[in-house]
């Protein structure tokens, strides 16, 4: 019997790691409920703030879209960045490292499983948000919108893959780091307001987080009239920047994983629990 090729092993690993994430969601449906409810509560609070100050109705749309994208950011933080740390604590990381497969494949599987699961939640937030708050959108270009959305996810989960190696080095601080990267990122990436409000330079700095550019571009493509006065960069520039971020993050993630594997073999610290 011939042994499977490297690519075959790679893709089997991807499917194998994505499977429990997708199936797990089916087995614990209450999580879908909570994962939809929590962003919706936040979205509703921000919508009522805008209503209290008589903001134009498009701002409700900004908030609903931002609220849906929080699901991806939280998924990247809690199910990608901190994942290897949890795996270390439960004893799975050493199995990953000695398994005859690539850690990139394991991370990719986690990312794909996470994207599928999170898309269900994000879609629910958007659908319910649009329905409850009667948001009207006028799509400028569907292909561009889909392109921006997909590139944002690639860059975002690339960042998550990079974080998963970096966070592993922080041990117990990993969960606190994830906690810390919530509200400040909601602020600098403009989840609930157009990022241009931060000023051009600050928005440029925040563009290292892919959601910043993704949200701005998607808002331009969904609410063109209102975004004419609030846009940060041209959509085509943002698309290009997202491509660059995707490549840089994926490449960096591969390098960081290699370094982490090297450490694991050299001094064995990465399999010690409770650090």
């Amino acid at each position: 019997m011939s042994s499977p090729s490297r690519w075959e092993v790679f893709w089997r690993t991807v499917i194998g790691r994505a499977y429990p994430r997708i199936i797990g969601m089916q087995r614990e449906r209450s999580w879908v409920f909570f994962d939809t409810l929590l962003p919706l509560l936040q979205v509703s609070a921000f919508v009522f703030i805008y209503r209290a100050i008589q903001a134009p109705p498009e701002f409700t749309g900004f908030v609903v879209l931002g609220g849906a994208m929080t699901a991806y950011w939280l998924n990247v933080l809690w199910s990608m960045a901190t994942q290897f740390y949890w795996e270390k604590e439960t004893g799975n990381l050493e199995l990953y490292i000695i398994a005859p497969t690539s850690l990139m494949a394991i991370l990719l599987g986690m990312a794909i499983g996470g994207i599928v699961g999170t898309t269900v939640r994000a879609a629910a937030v958007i659908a319910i948000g649009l329905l409850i708050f009667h948001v009207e959108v006028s799509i400028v270009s569907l292909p561009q919108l889909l392109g921006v959305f997909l590139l944002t996810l690639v860059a975002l989960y690339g960042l998550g893959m990079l974080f998963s190696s970096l966070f592993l080095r922080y041990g117990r601080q990993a969960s606190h780091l994830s906690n810390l990267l919530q509200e400040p990122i909601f602020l600098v990436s403009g989840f609930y307001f157009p990022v241009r409000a931060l000023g051009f330079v600050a928005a440029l700095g925040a563009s290292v987080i892919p959601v910043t550019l993704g949200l701005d571009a998607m808002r331009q493509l969904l609410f063109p009239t209102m975004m004419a006065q609030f846009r940060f960069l041209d959509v085509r520039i943002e698309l290009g920047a997202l491509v660059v971020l995707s490549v840089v993050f994926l490449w960096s993630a591969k390098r960081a994983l290699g370094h982490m594997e090297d450490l694991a073999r050299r001094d064995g610290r990465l399999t010690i629990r409770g650090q």
Partner: protein
Amino acid sequence: MSVMRRQRAGESIRSLRMAAWLGWQIESNWAAPFLFAIYSIAKPVAGALILVLMYTVIAPGGLQNRLFPQIFVGNAFYIYVAMVLMGVSQAVIEDREHYGMLKYIYVAPLNIYTYLLGRGAAQVAMATVAVFIMLLFGIIALGIPLSPASINWGILFAAWLFGLAGVAFGGIFLGGISLITARHNFYIGEATAGALYLLCGAVFPIDVLPRSLQLLSQALPLTYWLEALRRALLGGGASELLSGLSDGVLLLILAGSVVLLAVISVVFYRWAENWAREKGLIDMQSMY
């Protein structure tokens, strides 16, 4: 009899003190003090800055809008709700599942209620620092009209105390739910804090809510708590709906509703505890 009572009181105080110390160590010993200080401040300040940006972008008059100080104060004090509610309720799940200590806590000579309140006390201390820094930031950087001379300290202290008691008993109620559930513990605190953030008008006047949610809002102690705090600090509340209530009536409603919540929480926790003992849930390890 009085010796026993004194012993119990001593036990309760000891439980409270040790739990507060334990809670503080769990929350803070993972990082150097400087990093921990940044961590404790960055989150609430970032949350407040989101509101600042929202007002700057669109509100008539920007930060000079008459609602802004009300919203800023509501958001600052809401830090207590999020931290204490989650802190107390998650103490149960952390001790049971993460540290595996809940069963030892139950066999030790301590008072479980004061133990849980003690775990919340560490959160209160951290929240107090965060609220203080937020208010200071608001006064210095955002021009929130707050000065010691204009504050009604009596109402502020009474409202603060009642509100904290309400949040702590809310935490005990959620702790009871955590005791008898397996996989939803981390969501329970967050979902409750999220729902209350929306319903009690922390960041907008409850007048803008739909009528059904307004009624729900008026049934919550936290709505009156935030309104009383705003009146004490800023000289006026945010809501037209509550403007007919005098300060005294507002505090009376707050006190009454907190007492009611305390009774419900303790009764419910006791029931949940008995249920957990019957079903062997005190030392459950669900691996979540």
